[in-house]
């Protein structure tokens, strides 16, 4: 199978999206005869060209980070460029990867619904969406071994069957909400200031610590 991969993160090569895709594609390439090509949406000034490639693809994976509860603007601009193909993508199979900073998959569910609808609008076939929350920055050591193995396995089975293994997808987003014991712990960690500490460290490294509560617009 030839897979066309779209990375919709504004951070392109240094994105968490790429980090997860790398693992997925490593597994995918274990399938005989498989190949892929990666396209970066951000920075592309000929969106219509990317759209044309999608329309001519048999199978494509579109991946992006959650931005304000949905796709980044640049990814939306790519979706807008698909307008000429409404109803004409019958020969294309689409799947998606949405990854987010917040841990709960529930933040990504509305955009997941959007993606299924988009696929329908294009007349394409919907393979599914991988949702993963709590993704830590690639620059901070990011992908744990366990997470990258999961993405590899998912990529491997996708490379063989052309579908997402629903158990593996579910395993990446086991429950939509945090359980109440976890929420209580998070609350407690917040009270003792522990939760803020991670960001405080980054604030110090970047020179913003003393201004962290600034309100420039008042």
């Amino acid at each position, binding site marked *: 199978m030839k897979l066309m991969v779209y990375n919709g993160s504004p951070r392109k090569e240094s994105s968490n999206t790429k980090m997860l895709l790398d693992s997925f594609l490593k597994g995918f390439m274990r399938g005989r005869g498989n190949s892929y090509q990666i396209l970066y949406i951000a920075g592309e000034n000929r969106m219509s060209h990317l759209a044309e490639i999608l329309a001519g693809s048999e199978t494509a994976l579109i991946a992006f980070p959650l931005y304000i*509860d949905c796709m980044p*603007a640049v990814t*939306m601009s790519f979706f807008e460029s698909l307008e000429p193909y409404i109803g004409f993508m019958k020969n294309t199979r689409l799947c998606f990867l949405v990854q987010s900073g917040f841990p709960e998959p529930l933040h990504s569910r509305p955009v997941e619904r959007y993606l299924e609808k988009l696929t329908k609008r294009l007349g394409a076939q919907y393979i599914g969406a991988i949702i993963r929350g709590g993704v830590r920055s690639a620059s901070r050591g990011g992908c744990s071994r366990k997470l990258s193995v999961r993405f590899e396995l998912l990529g491997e089975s996708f490379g063989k069957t052309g579908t997402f293994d629903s158990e593996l997808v579910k395993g990446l987003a086991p429950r939509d909400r945090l359980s109440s014991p976890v929420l209580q712990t998070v609350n407690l960690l917040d009270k003792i200031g522990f939760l803020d500490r991670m960001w405080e460290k980054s604030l110090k490294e970047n020179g913003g610590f003393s201004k962290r509560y600034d309100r420039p617009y*008042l």
Partner: protein
Amino acid sequence: MKILILNGNPDEGNVHFDKYLEELQSSLGETGHDVEIFLLREMDIQYCDGCHGCWLRTPGECLVSDHTQLIRKSFVNSDLVISASPIRMGFISSLLKKGKDKFIPLVLPFVRVENGEIHHKPRYDKYPLLGFILDKGLDGDNEDVEIISQIAERNAMQLGTHLSFVSLTSKEEGELADEINGL
């Protein structure tokens, strides 16, 4: 009320949409509101590039000084902010979304539990009520409106405020103005 309308219509040929908002502006003006419209397609709005500088280096402000500074300033000083867009490919325009991606300086990087979910802590004491005006156009349908509303509700929750309405341009602007007067 101080009301800000973000006009995310990307297409200057779509004059109906702009006109609808202008008429709403004057109706609301007549009942004493102070209404400002930002025509996003004529503003300099750069894509958020995800650098997190607005949290870590110049907290509360984007490192890129484009016109979204004006938008954010007006946003936090308004009572109601109405986002307006024709529906394209089932969603708000990427133009409007480009403005919205630049809202993260308005919250703190720190997180907390809110409604049983993880959300950012607020940077400001108070945020405006939010509303939406959508135009279904040729291709939009009720399901699109529903999805956009769901996402808009999540956006509002994120800012610790409320989504007070999602309205369609098929509604008379006078009727919408009355509803806004009743808020």
